[in-house]
């Protein structure tokens, strides 16, 4: 277990270092999410309902995450490095955990800018909505990293990733919107937590089969 944690941490650190040097993923995510919120702000009437604004926030979050996931395995794909990682004796789930942690870090960084921008343009988020964002991030990164690894192996990977990811993200959006503007945010938060637990277990158990033939 300590080996899994150490390997996951080493792989996540590697991805953060790669991003720090290449600066390819996070700037794109930041630019996208801020642009999306600015466009929504100017395109919608001033008296837009909180419910509509909340929905748009979740559209922005999901597509920002998708942008990050599209680039999650770029280094591994372009240089065949997934083979090198798969050949090491580390638990293959460590590859998934490390990558998911790195994607989570990028998504949280983007949201640290996006949520204040949302508060500025629309309305401040309450604690339940922020908890919803946190839980949704976990689910997005868990599921998204698995399907990003699946898409890497395919030929039409740019098409395959959204095709696989977006249907799986629908429950996250439903739970997230419920936590943001719903009447029973606690129920939505419980739903998101359940989603995270179920999909984290599924992804942990199945990642090995995704990266090996």
């Amino acid at each position, binding site marked *: 277990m300590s080996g899994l944690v150490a390997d996951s941490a*080493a792989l996540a650190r590697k991805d953060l270092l790669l991003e720090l*040097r290449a600066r390819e993923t996070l700037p794109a995510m930041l630019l996208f999410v801020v642009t999306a919120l600015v466009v929504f702000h100017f395109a919608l009437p001033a008296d837009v309902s909180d419910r509509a604004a909340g929905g748009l926030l979740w559209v922005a979050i999901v597509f920002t995450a998708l942008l990050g996931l599209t680039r999650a395995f770029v280094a591994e794909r372009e*240089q*065949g*490095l997934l083979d090198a990682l798969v*050949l*090491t*004796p580390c638990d293959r789930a460590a590859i998934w955990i490390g990558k998911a942690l790195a994607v989570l870090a990028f998504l949280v960084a983007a949201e640290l800018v996006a949520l204040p921008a949302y508060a500025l343009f629309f309305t401040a988020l309450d604690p339940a909505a922020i908890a919803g964002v946190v839980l949704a991030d976990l689910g997005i990164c868990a599921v998204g990293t698995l399907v990003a690894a699946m898409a890497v192996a395919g030929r039409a990977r740019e098409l395959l990733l959204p095709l696989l990811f977006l249907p799986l993200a629908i429950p996250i959006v439903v739970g997230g919107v419920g936590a943001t503007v719903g009447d029973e945010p606690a129920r939505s938060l419980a739903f998101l937590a359940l989603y995270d637990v179920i999909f984290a277990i599924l992804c942990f158990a199945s990642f090995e089969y995704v990266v*090996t*033939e």
Partner: protein
Amino acid sequence: MIRARGLTKRFGTKRVVTPLDLDVGAGDFLVVTGPNGSGKTTLLRLFSGLVAPTGGELELSVDRSALGFLAHEPLVYRELSAVENLELFGRLYRVPERRERVGMLLERYGLWDARHERARSFSRGMLQRLGLCRTLLHDPRLLLLDEPFNALDADGVELLERELASPASERTLVVATHDPQRLDAFATSRLALA
């Protein structure tokens, strides 16, 4: 070490490895030759476990921790330095006394002075040397090398030949090459793919 019986590999309708019977014992040095597209790389990938056979049997008596694979690409992160790459893989391979081992390999393969430079700035030959360091890092018992002399200069070739000839290592080697004469001195068996 490796036992194959009726081993085949297809990609779609194309048969890349035809039924193959093969035994590679511990300490053997197998040289695999053949024209482009004859299945040399696929055979090495089968032995490494990166691809699964379509048919037949394949048994390996080593696990991943004792297997070293040098592919066409050096399989190193271009945005990491030589040291960072080897530290990462050394950690994943649980290499004991990792720092010393990394330093020794970088020194031996002439990359010590460039150890803190990003691999992106390396020439193709330096990348090949770094790929060899990554492959040898955990002192594997089974070494699979795909065109290992690619891009190496005369010094690099000499270093690799010295590594292959090392009597201290009880390694089993499978080397795919277009230049088998270079390996005549080491080979204990040959496999020519058509």
